[in-house]
């Protein structure tokens, strides 16, 4: 005989009673393993999606300023770093069937060649494709509908090196329409999911032959994306530094005529017209003695009655024949001096346009005094940068520089000047004076001039300028994608949290069944003690026996966890789809997860058993051995007083927590737990009072109610499970939000706007002020709850703070420490420590999407390849702005100068009338998608509501288990007292009366459990009700509570009926 043999014998002999322990551990392990399995599956699926969207791509280069580089750079980098390099054109556009049906917005248009397909290990799907042939990915094919071979039209904005927001940028909004036919549908395995954005949402993609697309958008031999496989970003950047040319930054050093006005031999200029300030500074540092120039178009230069229209004026530094000019001084060329009749010392006025942040032109004027008149001989057109609509135009009447021009003012002599001198400036001002009036966010120079030869300058600039710092940098997209997937919303943790109550209910039920089985074997424990076994050993054996059953259950649970995980994943794909939009999850569990689930399930079960077995061996052997020993141990009056005191304390603490914590989740759960604890302690006091009550009970009901006090442990466990379940079910139900509840109000998540609109292509005219607020958009990772990946770089919206402040749009939850929440949107203009840019986001974006809080400062990439500090100054509740951080338009333009126009709009209902309607019509052509703001908010709230639905469903299952526990308690209580009931029957009580007695006894427990749960939930959510107005719904949860009470009573009734079946009088004989 060995202890192990004893354990095995006991385990087998009492297998039916151990089944409860086994099932409890099985449930706990299955739920744990399954929940962790859901996490594994989501991570695995996101990783799979990340790898599908990137193929073999490890690093990618997309110039931060949106510029183009030489296509040849790809080959050069591959030659330096090895690996596979594929140049691409990456554009945004719309796709639709020619009849306008099936319009798809936000389509990525990708120009590719065979090198792209090789990154997915496949053949060139566009080999030999004609100009009208394309490939589409499966999602776009599905969205376009019809036969994939049917024609469709892609509209894409013709890229401009110069921002459309820049002055003299030509006519904004030019787009190219391509009529195409899909010759292939690209699936995920062949690159159909290609995207550089960390999102589980597959993009809509059209693949076009690179060369053809280059021609269509007038960028021959150029690319704006470079994908690199098999080379890490660091090595790629090293190769880039070795291989790059100035042309890759749209820079050119060109030789100048030796007899030029300034005696300069070469000039650096940019395809983007304005030289980026940082680049210009680097170039000045690299080549000392460089002289800057800024050439601009004056609408008019006037001296008295005489005026010359549309003249180029250059602001330049002194050098050669360019005189030193102070503030307010001007040098006219001889032609203009003659035209105006100007002499030295005359005062001329010229007018010019500047572009405001809203792209509205403002004509301004400046007065200068003539200090010099320059001869025409050494003047040339090299000063004029290639302004779109001016450079290369033969006649002045054909000018189209993107500003309103009265071409009728152009005189024949002006045409003659243009023909002879082209863009030679008619006047010079000092550089500082010129920059003060014409400098803009795109730069304050149009060229830098050098005394050295072009070849030498170019060599020096290539050596000294770091292309990576200038925004031409490879990003480790593969590592970022994997990181985004790893840092994704932890669905494992989420389901574990949601299943907590279910696990707790399973364990509690298990512990209760274990206690019952130990009570049944009390004599055995007594015998072991009498035989000389130490109490601890008796306890250990009891625990080991339960542990063996639990281990078997946990092992089976680990296997059953797969089923739970699959069910949960199925739920996420169907009824809870809102929680994980576009999530295509495949079941996957790591071996470690299975082991962990089984291990934790077993450990949790053992803890519950240890708690249940804590009294084992403590009662004297003689008492245990005495057959029929009194198992009922009602609470004493003293215990009742203690519990009453604890209840009052708990209630006071809960009130304090609610008063101090407001509507935070911590306050809700803290106060809820305290209220539940207070309720349970109060119940204990009540049961003690019942037990101590003297005098006879009147009637069966009173006897039944008193019976609830006979087993306070069982009764309190039942009350606790019911109360916790009801609390969670009601509270989560009450937190479900209805997006339509307050949609029209300014303080709601819609900001009171009727519509939220986004356009695929930028819109360059804002809507009328009264009809809406335009938002500038910097596309980052979607940080909303719709994106399962952790956003690596958030997107930004630029807004005029006053536009929202004046409307009192949106409500603020909190502000950064030291700032007043009441300042609202004006916080965006408040200077921040360390020059950080103030940003506002909603709770889901800030807290969950980015893992930040109000007051946090973090670094973000800007539009120039650098970074800038951002401080969260305010947090909103759930809103239509979710997924982005909002900064002031002023800061937006400073940080992302290349982003032109507006691509998001908060629109009033009035936009459909009058001037707004005309604006809307124009915006429709830019791929506008306009949705009711409440629907957009609803999409975001659907995620939260889906989480609550999961919580409710799993909590409901837990409650079901809890009420099953109640049935077990009823059954056990009746079974223990069959003798007592038999006696009552012998005394003449009818079976129905006995059932009523049992029902009354347990109805007290149900009433206490449901009542405490419902009251605790009502009090805990009170602050949220006050804060949210009446967004929380009450009726549903109340109905749920009543249904639960009914369900629990039904269980009790059923258990009473079943337990009281059969001839009771046999029990009397047993007595």
């Amino acid at each position, binding site marked *: 005989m060995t202890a192990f043999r004893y354990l095995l014998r006991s385990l087998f002999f009492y297998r039916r009673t151990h089944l409860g322990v086994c099932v409890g551990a099985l449930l706990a392990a299955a739920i744990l393993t399954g929940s962790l399995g859901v996490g594994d599956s989501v991570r695995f699926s996101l990783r799979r999606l990340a790898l599908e969207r990137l193929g073999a791509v490890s690093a990618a280069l997309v110039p931060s300023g949106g510029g183009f580089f030489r296509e040849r750079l790809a080959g050069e980098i591959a030659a330096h770093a090895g690996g596979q390099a594929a140049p691409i054109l990456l554009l945004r556009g719309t796709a639709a069937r020619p009849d306008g049906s099936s319009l798809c917005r936000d389509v990525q248009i990708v120009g590719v060649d065979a090198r792209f397909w090789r990154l997915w290990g496949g053949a060139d799907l566009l080999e030999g494709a004609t100009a009208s042939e394309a490939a589409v990915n499966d999602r776009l094919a599905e969205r376009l509908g019809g036969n994939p071979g049917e024609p469709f039209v892609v509209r894409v904005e013709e890229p401009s090196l110069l921002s459309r927001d820049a002055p003299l940028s030509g006519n904004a909004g030019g787009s190219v329409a391509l009529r195409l036919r899909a010759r292939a549908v690209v699936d995920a395995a062949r690159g159909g999911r290609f995207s550089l954005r960390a999102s589980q949402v597959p993009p809509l993609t059209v693949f076009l032959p690179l060369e053809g697309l280059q021609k269509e958008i007038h960028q021959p031999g150029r690319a704006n994306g470079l994908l690199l496989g098999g080379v890490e970003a660091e090595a790629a950047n090293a190769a880039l530094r070795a291989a790059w040319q100035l042309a890759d930054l749209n820079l050119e050093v060109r030789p100048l005529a030796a007899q030029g006005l300034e005696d300069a031999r070469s000039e650096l200029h940019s395809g983007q017209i304005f030289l980026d300030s940082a680049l210009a500074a680097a170039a000045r540092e690299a080549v000392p003695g460089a002289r800057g120039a800024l050439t601009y178009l004056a609408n008019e230069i006037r001296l008295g009655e005489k005026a010359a229209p549309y003249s180029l004026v250059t602001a330049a530094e002194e050098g050669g024949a360019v005189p030193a000019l102070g503030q307010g001084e001007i040098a006219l060329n001889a032609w203009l001096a003659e035209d105006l009749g100007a002499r030295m010392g005359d005062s001329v006025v010229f007018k010019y346009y500047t572009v405001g942040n809203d792209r509205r032109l403002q004509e301004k004027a400046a007065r200068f005094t003539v200090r010099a008149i320059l001869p025409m001989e050494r003047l040339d057109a090299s000063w004029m940068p290639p302004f779109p609509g001016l450079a290369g135009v033969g006649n002045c009447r054909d000018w189209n520089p993107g500003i309103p021009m009265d071409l009728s003012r152009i005189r024949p002599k002006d045409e003659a000047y243009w023909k002879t001198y082209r863009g030679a400036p008619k006047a010079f001002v000092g550089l500082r004076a010129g920059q003060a009036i014409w400098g803009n966010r795109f730069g304050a120079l149009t060229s830098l001039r050098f005394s050295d030869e072009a070849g030498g300058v170019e060599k020096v600039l290539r050596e000294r300028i770091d292309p990576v710092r200038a925004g031409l940098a490879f990003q480790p997209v593969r590592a970022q994608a994997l990181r985004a997937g790893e840092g994704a919303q932890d669905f494992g943790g989420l389901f574990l949290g949601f299943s907590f109550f279910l696990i707790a209910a399973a364990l509690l039920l298990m512990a209760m069944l274990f206690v019952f089985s130990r009570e049944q074997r009390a004599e055995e424990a007594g015998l072991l003690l009498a035989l*000389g076994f130490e109490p601890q050993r008796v306890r250990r054996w009891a625990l080991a026996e339960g542990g063996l059953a639990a281990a078997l259950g946990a092992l089976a649970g680990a296997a059953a966890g797969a089923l739970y995980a699959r069910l949960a994943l199925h739920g996420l794909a169907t009824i809870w789809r809102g929680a994980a939009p576009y999530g295509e999850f495949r079941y996957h569990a790591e071996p470690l997860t299975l082991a962990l689930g089984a291990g934790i399930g077993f450990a949790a079960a053992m803890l519950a058993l240890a708690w249940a077995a804590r009294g084992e061996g403590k009662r004297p052997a003689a008492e245990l051995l005495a057959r029929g020993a009194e198992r009922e141990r009602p609470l004493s009056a003293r215990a009742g007083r203690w519990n009453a005191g604890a209840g009052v304390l708990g209630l006071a603490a809960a009130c304090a927590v609610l008063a101090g914590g407001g509507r935070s989740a911590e306050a809700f759960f803290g106060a809820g737990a305290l209220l539940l604890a207070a309720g349970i302690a109060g119940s204990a006091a009540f049961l003690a009072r019942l037990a101590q009550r003297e005098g006879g009970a009147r009637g069966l009901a009173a006897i039944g109610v008193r019976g609830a006090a006979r087993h306070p442990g069982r009764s309190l466990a039942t009350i606790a499970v019911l109360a916790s379940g009801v609390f969670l079910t009601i509270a989560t139900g009450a937190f479900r939000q209805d997006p339509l509840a307050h949609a029209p109000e300014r303080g709601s998540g819609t900001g009171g706007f009727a519509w939220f609109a986004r356009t695929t292509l930028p819109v360059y005219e804002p809507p009328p002020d009264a009809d809406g607020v335009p938002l500038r958009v910097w596309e980052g990772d979607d940080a909303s709850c719709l994106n399962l990946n952790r956003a690596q770089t958030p997107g930004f919206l630029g807004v005029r703070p006053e536009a929202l402040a004046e409307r009192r749009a949106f409500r603020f939850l909190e502000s950064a420490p030291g700032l007043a929440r009441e300042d609202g949107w004006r916080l965006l203009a408040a200077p921040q420590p360390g020059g950080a840019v103030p940003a506002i986001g909603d709770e889901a974006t800030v807290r969950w999407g980015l893992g930040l809080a109000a007051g946090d400062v973090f670094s973000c990439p800007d539009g120039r390849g650098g970074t800038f500090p951002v401080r969260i100054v305010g947090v909103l509740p759930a809103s239509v702005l979710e997924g982005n951080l909002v900064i002031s338009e002023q800061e937006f333009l400073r940080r992302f100068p290349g982003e032109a126009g507006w691509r998001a709009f908060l629109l009033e209902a009035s936009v459909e009338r009058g001037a707004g309607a005309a604006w809307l019509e124009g915006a429709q052509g830019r791929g506008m998608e306009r949705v009711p703001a409440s629907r957009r908010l609803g999409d975001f709230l659907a995620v939260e509501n889906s989480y609550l639905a999961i919580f409710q469903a799993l909590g409901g299952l837990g409650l079901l288990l809890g009420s099953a526990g109640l049935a077990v308690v009823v059954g056990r209580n009746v079974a223990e007292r069959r003798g007592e009931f038999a006696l009552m029957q012998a005394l003449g009580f009818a079976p129905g009366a006995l059932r009523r007695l049992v029902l009354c006894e347990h109805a007290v427990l149900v009433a206490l459990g449901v009542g405490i749960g419902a009251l605790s939930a009502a009090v805990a959510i009170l602050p949220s009700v006050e804060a949210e107005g009446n967004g929380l719904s009450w009726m549903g949860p109340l109905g749920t509570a009543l249904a639960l009470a009914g369900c629990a009573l039904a269980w009790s009734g059923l258990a009473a009926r079943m337990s009281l079946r059969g001839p009771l009088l046999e029990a009397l004989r047993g007595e």
Partner: protein
Amino acid sequence: MDASPSPSPLLELRAVGKRYGAGGTAVEVLDGVDLVLESGASLAILGPSGCGKSTLLNCIGTLDRPTSGEVLLEGADWQRLSPREIARLRARRIGFVFQLHHLLPQCTVLENILLPTLADPASPPGPEAAERAGRLLERVGLSARKNHRPGELSGGERQRAAVVRALINRPALLLADEPTGSLDAASAESLGDLLAELNREEGVALVVATHSPELARRMARTGRLHEGRLRVS
């Protein structure tokens, strides 16, 4: 506790009292019980139901603590021992036979008999214990039933198995609380004979609480418990 022969009597009770409850409702079950029992002696304690026979046996057998007085086993008052030492004392020196056999239904007869050997780390090794169990089972006529479950045994057989279990660790003192109380007359007589014989053969002191005069007559001495006091003749 030393198992070697000692000059002290095996068991000595000095003014042992046991009271249940407190205040006006207190019940004095034992009131100054004195008793001396030598090794190998036998004693029957007689008395009506509820007179405190089981209580007295529990106090002797370390299962219940007296309210007053001393219970000296081989010269030492067990009340001064730690719980661990008391458990060890029970395992090594005291055997119990209860009115109900309390055999574990999940174990065979042999396993039930060997169960006490697990309580005492100093118990003889498995084969030796099994051999003794075999001898004892043969002695009580149960060798053919050793692999049976208690449920398959008659009441008398079960009680005999319980006696063997009580003797497996060679206790110095065997306490039997109404051992024949749940047996028919024939089984009761047979068990009485067995206890008396084992008392002689094994040299184990025997204290039997009973209200069966037949069983009492088989013991060397008889004590009567009345109003909490024990009078031994």
